């Protein structure tokens, strides 16, 4: 396969300026991650110690095979909610290796509000289970939660993707034959009690672990019975009398080594086979990505320069190199796995949309997973393009993408606007995993365009009433719209709302995709099948 020939000038001023800018973005990201992971009030850490509990990060460390990667998901979930006081939405999720098996891990963080679940915590658990279902991954729950954060119950309890979905998804996993294991390290109260109860296996720590539908305060309020948590739903009660939990453990260390032993009994299913070859590092240094990503997302650059720094040997077999040049399509390998890559090199026109639709069909036909590098301002607008059927050609691309049966992965590498987000496999299209870069932006249209549209509407309303506005008054309408767009379109907002599975330092993209592809192959790939394409 031919190597991409990079035209990047690493001595150019723009390269150096971009590098400085993007390293700053990376440092900001690392700092925010570090804060979310480890910055806790001292009194909460002291309380954990008093309770004889380990910090959630140490529990995960003990559980994982030493020296293996852990792909943590949505570390910055809820970073823009709850006054920033719910780091990682008080839940840690991620994909790791336990006794040689790929597993999904869900761990409650009781150093944040006693591990209470906020609305976004619920969303994060549901998403974690969706990923487990889509990739047929066993799940290990490290349970230590006070239950739902009651003041916000209306935002996480009753709706389709709220609390109930957690347990519905657990049942679906079990029905598919994918085992789950709960390690009860703290309280599992109310709904949370169903997590160990619905798991195939469970371990509970004596003294600190407890499972009950109603905790001591609720029992007292309901029946007047005064009882300790341990008497009500502790280790002895559940492992000796009720049979709700399977294995007793004297302390957290024993519970986690028991968990590792249980996982070692899971039978490993054969993975789907796709084209694979010996792994080769990218020929061009991935660190150069920092110099490629422009400081302003409006500035266009050749997406092949990104591809060259993500794929094995920087080799890329480009499909239709001379047609529909604003969408670059082609085959490459990532960590040895063959993939089909679609990357934007400008607006989607009729030809680029058709090319994308056709290319995705090729990938479905030969079982090649799809990687979308999304940097798209949208499908082209205007009479000439409508006349040529830009809407129905875009619809073909969306149909081909939405009906793809091969695993899909999306990386938001720049802008993501309007229907471009749909065609290029945005969140709604079930990418197995979707990552963002710190520079990326998502919104239904560009901020400037939205402000212009709103000003136009306002002006024509007022014109009917015979009122005209001064430049300053117009500016006063525009500015708040622009500011809101700026705030709500950036990557930290997306990741806070769990529109992605996490923000990546660009140079970690190759490794993250490698893990994602490996995990996706746990699920067999179906035969291709589509809806009706409008020709």
């Amino acid at each position, binding site marked *: 396969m*031919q190597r991409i020939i990079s*035209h990047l000038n690493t001595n150019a001023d723009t390269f150096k300026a971009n590098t400085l800018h993007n390293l700053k973005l990376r440092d900001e990201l690392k700092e925010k991650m570090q804060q979310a992971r480890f910055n806790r009030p001292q009194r909460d850490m002291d309380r954990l110690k008093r309770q004889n509990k380990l910090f959630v990060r140490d529990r995960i460390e003990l559980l994982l095979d030493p020296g293996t990667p852990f792909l943590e998901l949505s570390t910055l979930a809820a970073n823009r909610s709850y006054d920033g006081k719910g780091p990682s939405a008080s839940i840690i999720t991620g994909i790791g290796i336990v006794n040689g098996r790929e597993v999904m891990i869900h761990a409650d963080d009781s150093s944040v509000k006693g591990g209470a679940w906020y609305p976004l915590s619920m969303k994060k658990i549901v998403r974690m289970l969706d990923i487990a279902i889509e990739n047929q991954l066993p799940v290990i729950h490290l349970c230590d939660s006070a239950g739902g954060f009651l003041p916000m119950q209306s935002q996480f309890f009753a709706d389709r993707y709220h609390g109930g979905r957690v347990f519905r998804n657990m049942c679906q996993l079990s029905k598919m034959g994918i085992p789950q294991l709960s390690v009860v390290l703290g309280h599992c109260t109310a709904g949370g009690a169903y997590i160990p109860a619905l798991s195939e296996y469970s371990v509970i720590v004596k003294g600190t672990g407890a499972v009950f539908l109603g905790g001591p305060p609720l029992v007292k309020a309901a029946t007047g019975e005064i009882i300790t948590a341990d008497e009500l739903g502790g280790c002895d009660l559940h492992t000796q009398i009720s049979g709700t939990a399977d294995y007793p453990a004297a302390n957290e260390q024993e519970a986690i080594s028991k968990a590792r032993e249980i996982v070692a009994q899971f039978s490993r299913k054969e993975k789907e086979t796709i084209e694979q070859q010996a792994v080769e590092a990218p020929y061009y240094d991935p660190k150069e990505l920092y110099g490629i990503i422009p400081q302003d997302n409006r500035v266009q650059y050749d997406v092949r320069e990104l591809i060259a720094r993500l794929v094995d040997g920087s080799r890329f077999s480009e499909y239709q190199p001379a047609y529909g040049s604003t969408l670059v399509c082609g085959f490459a390998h990532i960590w040895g796995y063959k993939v089909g890559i679609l990357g934007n090199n400008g*607006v989607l*026109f009729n030809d680029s949309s058709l090319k994308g639709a056709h290319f995705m069909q090729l990938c479905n036909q030969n079982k090649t997973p799809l990687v979308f590098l999304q940097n798209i301002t949208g499908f*082209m607008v*205007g009479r*000439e393009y409508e006349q040529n059927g830009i809407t129905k050609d875009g619809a073909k691309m969306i149909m081909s993408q939405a009906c793809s049966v091969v695993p899909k992965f999306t990386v938001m590498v720049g802008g993501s606007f309007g229907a471009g987000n749909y065609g290029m496999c945005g969140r709604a299209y079930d990418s197995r995993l979707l990552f963002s870069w710190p520079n990326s932006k998502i919104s239904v249209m560009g901020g*400037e365009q939205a402000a212009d549209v709103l000003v136009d509407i306002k002006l024509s309303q007022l014109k009917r009433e015979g009122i005209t506005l001064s430049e300053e008054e117009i500016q006063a309408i525009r500015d708040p719209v622009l500011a809101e767009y700026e705030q709500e379109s950036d990557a930290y907002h997306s990741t806070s709302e769990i529109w992605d599975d996490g923000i990546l330092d660009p140079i970690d993209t190759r490794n993250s995709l490698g893990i994602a592809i490996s995990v996706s192959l746990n699920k067999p790939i179906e035969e291709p099948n589509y809806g009706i394409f409008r020709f």
Partner: protein
Amino acid sequence: MRSSYKVADKTVQAQLLQRAETQLIVDEKTSTIALKALGDDEYRVTANEASTSAYAIARGEQFFIHLNGRHYLVECEDEAHSSAQSGSAADKTIASAPMPGTVISVNVETGQTVKENDTLMVIESMKMETTINAWRDGVIATINVNVGDSFDRMAALIELEE
């Protein structure tokens, strides 16, 4: 198709054949060979019953080989690339607009000499700034648009002398 390799500026066609014994065909000559890795990048090479030791290190498509007291650089040429004809960009004189838009900046003047990949102008369309670069070395013949101008798709933006 045989693979082609560049050895000391000479291109040779070569192919390994795994038959009862391993055969190496270089240009039209066939030899029976055997290769055994001895570790630390050292190999025992046997060709037509003569045997010697060699060192080899690969870096991408380049191989650095030390054999019989001499160094060789062998480069593997990509099949599709080595068969390709030279491009047609050289004949083109006009840069046409890839889509309707407006001109953000014009970075050259008429009569100016430019090199391939030099920035000629920047246009904006659909919230994206696109740079029009020189597709070959040349001299600017005409510039048909000014900063702020709007243009249609396929409009001739800038021309190089033939």
